[in-house]
């Protein structure tokens, strides 16, 4: 279920809690390593290094498992969701789920030292939770506070931490050590991880989990179908798309240097961050 491959947003919602356990399990399971080509084949060796997927055999197993779960469970559910639920309701559901992710996004923006982005997120949370009726309507975008992508993995990237080798995680799909760590951090700092217990809270969390999965999967229905239909090696294509998309959102965040101080304040040049290119 590589749902976040092409999606322009991280939409997992409370799928995350599962993910935390899953990422723990995968670290134990990471046994199969790919053998690098011999030094007598410099081109093949260069390819191997560029691909940066030393755990490819294991990753491909998880890809196959996720793909199986997706084919029998998630994709049909997403198709049904799209077929049964009207567009308007799906889009409002998406807004609510996005709004529930805003507190975590706010913390990520702050730790990324992006005050203007954090300001956007805070305004979105305040406006959409109140005037937008608990996030049903995305009023903030129309009022000049558009959404952006942000998560702890991106924050780590902006701190200069490189992505590391490619990982394909059970349930979660494409990732890498940095983004998997970021995912764990986001779960840990999410209010829903800490707030309350009992039947009602559990019901809300599970609904959010289920709806989040449906919403995320239905958003990439066509893209993922196309990839599987047109790619000769869908695993490699998803790997490539994930990395490029991640890098581009990190670059966007890095380049986002909106002025936060009055025009008369002396500008200090910000040194380029050392986030490594894949």
């Amino acid at each position, binding site marked *: 279920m590589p749902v976040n491959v*092409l999606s*322009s947003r991280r939409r997992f919602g409370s799928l995350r809690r599962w993910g935390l356990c899953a990422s723990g399990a995968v670290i134990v399971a990471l046994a199969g390593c790919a053998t690098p080509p011999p030094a007598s084949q410099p*081109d*093949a060796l260069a*390819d191997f290094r560029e*691909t940066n997927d030393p755990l490819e055999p294991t990753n491909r197993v998880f890809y196959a498992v996720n793909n199986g779960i997706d084919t029998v469970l998630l994709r049909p559910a997403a198709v049904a969701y799209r077929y049964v639920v009207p*567009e308007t309701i799906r*889009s409002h559901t998406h807004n609510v789920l996005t709004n529930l992710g805003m507190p975590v996004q706010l913390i990520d923006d702050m730790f990324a030292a992006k005050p203007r982005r954090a300001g956007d997120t805070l305004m979105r949370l305040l406006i959409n939770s109140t005037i937008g009726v608990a996030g049903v309507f995305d009023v903030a975008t129309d009022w000049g506070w558009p959404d952006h992508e942000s998560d702890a993995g991106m924050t780590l990237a902006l701190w200069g931490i490189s992505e590391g080798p490619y990982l394909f995680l059970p349930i979660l799909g494409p990732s890498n050590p940095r983004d998997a760590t970021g995912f764990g951090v986001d779960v840990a700092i999410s209010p829903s991880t800490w707030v309350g217990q009992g039947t009602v809270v559990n019901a809300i969390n599970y609904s959010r989990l289920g709806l989040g999965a449906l919403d995320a999967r239905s958003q990439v229905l*066509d893209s993922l179908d*196309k990839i599987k239909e*047109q*790619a*000769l*090696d869908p*695993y*490699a*294509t998803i*790997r*490539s*798309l994930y990395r*490029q*998309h991640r*890098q*581009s*959102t990190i*670059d*966007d965040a890095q380049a986002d240097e909106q002025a936060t101080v009055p025009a008369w304040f002396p500008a200090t040049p910000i040194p380029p961050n050392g986030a490594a290119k894949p």
Partner: protein
Amino acid sequence: MTGYTKLIGQTPVSQGFSGNPMGRRTVLAAGCSLALAFALPAAAAEPSVSQATDFVDRTGHELMTAVNGPGTTKDKGAALQTIIDRAVDVNTIGRFCLGRFWRQATPQQQKDYIDLFHRVLVQNITGKVGEYEGVSLVVNRAAPREDGIAVTTTVTRPNSAPNRVDWLVSNESGSLRIIDVIAEGTSLRLTQRNDYTAYLGRNNNDVQALIDALKKQASGA
């Protein structure tokens, strides 16, 4: 580049400069060696930013007209193919996608591959026509990159957030053409190259295996 253009402009050869691509090549070659001799930056026939912007604006709107038009899916596909053939540098993209294996391929394999690449590309693009309607495109800005000019546009589809699409255009084929499309930061040709490289890696790096797979794809629809 400007210095080198100026240099050509001052030579009498530039009198016969209009239109004939062979003549232009020769002049450019001469210009390049002159440029090298004077240690000027020897950029190949790079299009200007405004040329690239106009080109993408024009081609983009042709594409939108074809996609949003009233005809059947088949008509739309035919219209798209005409635009692709004229505006997309399929040979350059195909060579890029094969990467280092281009050199390993025999001339016959290269020819077969390019033919098939062309067919599969057109098939993949025209196959999507049905799902796009009411698409609009706005050109934002353009910036030179090492392999061409990147023109940034915003493509909007009904009921979805606007997407950033960059079009990389170059003069490499002799006329202004698209050599890459970068949608939301993901490059079409790079993704394709990674796909092919992975497929080849799992098939003993045998170019013929890739050609056979493409044949299957081309006949599949």
